[in-house]
């Protein structure tokens, strides 16, 4: 299987199963030793599928080939302004009635690499883990990220929890030189941009409370430095004593 991220594989299997009626288990087993290319071009190698399922695969293959002529899936979305970023995420959250947190990864030219839903359900109750965000940003070689979440049917105003989450994620990403460019809140077809409302300082200022994991690493580094300095002093002292004896 060719996808870097497990979520993409799961999504592919789910959608392919939805449109062809082939069971997810059968697809997962097939893709353990085969590629998506095999699946589309040699559907007979998939054992035990019906004629109707094979026809659906043929239709998908033809559709894919025709769409490639139009080069539509090679289009890059450039998030060059708060407005472009807001509209992009409004479309992304359309038809989503549950609260979700989306991470949009982008290159240095603001072109979207990928948008990934990292959290579903009430954000206040189930936190978004900065560690997971850093992992995804590095995996897709992003230069910058855009954060977005929705308040279905609710207010566009950011809550204290939204602000704290933004600070924590920004601080974690700074450690690997990846910047947060904006945080968008979507409600219905409206959006609120942190950057547009002068909240960009949240992306660069320190968090009020240092996360314990970073504190622990920092303490260990400081302890090792002190130990090394003490050892150096002891060595210098020994050299001086030997010189005196001579």
């Amino acid at each position, binding site marked *: 299987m*060719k*996808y870097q991220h497990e979520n*993409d594989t799961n*999504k*592919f299997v789910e*959608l*392919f199963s*939805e*449109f062809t009626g082939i069971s997810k288990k059968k697809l997962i087993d097939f893709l353990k030793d085969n590629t*998506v290319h095999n699946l*589309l071009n040699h559907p007979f190698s998939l054992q035990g599928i019906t004629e109707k399922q094979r026809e*659906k695969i043929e*239709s*998908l293959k*033809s*559709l*894919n080939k*025709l*769409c*490639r*002529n*139009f080069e*539509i*899936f*090679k*289009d890059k979305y450039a998030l060059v302004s708060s407005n472009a970023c807001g509209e992009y995420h409004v*479309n992304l959250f*359309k*038809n989503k009635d549950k609260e979700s947190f989306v991470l949009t990864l982008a290159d240095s030219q603001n072109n979207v690499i990928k948008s990934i839903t990292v959290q579903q359900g009430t954000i206040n109750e189930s936190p978004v883990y900065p560690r997971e965000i850093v992992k995804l940003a590095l995996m897709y070689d992003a230069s910058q990220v855009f954060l977005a979440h929705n308040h279905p049917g609710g207010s566009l105003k950011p809550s204290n929890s939204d602000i704290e989450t933004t600070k924590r994620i920004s601080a974690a990403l700074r450690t690997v030189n990846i910047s947060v460019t904006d945080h968008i809140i979507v409600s219905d077809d409206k959006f609120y941009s942190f950057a547009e409302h002068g909240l960009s300082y949240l992306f660069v200022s320190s968090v009020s409370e240092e996360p314990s994991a970073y504190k622990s690493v920092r303490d260990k580094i400081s302890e090792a430095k002190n130990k090394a300095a003490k050892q150096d002093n002891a060595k210098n002292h020994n050299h001086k004593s030997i010189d005196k004896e001579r």
Partner: protein
Amino acid sequence: MIYKKLEEILGNPSDYVDGSKDKELERIVKLIADILDIEASALYPYFYQHGLSGIIKNPTLIESLHDKDINKLSNLFELLKLINE
């Protein structure tokens, strides 16, 4: 030289011969309708009006479809994106 200039202004002339691009769009719409098990006639006007990329960016432009079918269409585009990644 003149042809080159014309091509720059009008695009590739082969796109216009026999309306080849339109025919491709017609085949695409028919395949989409087959896969989704819906009537192609409900889709044609919207695809011609907004273009394929317009519908991909915003499937809700097809007002004749129910929410369930719009979700299916979005999922189909998502699947094609994944195939092309």
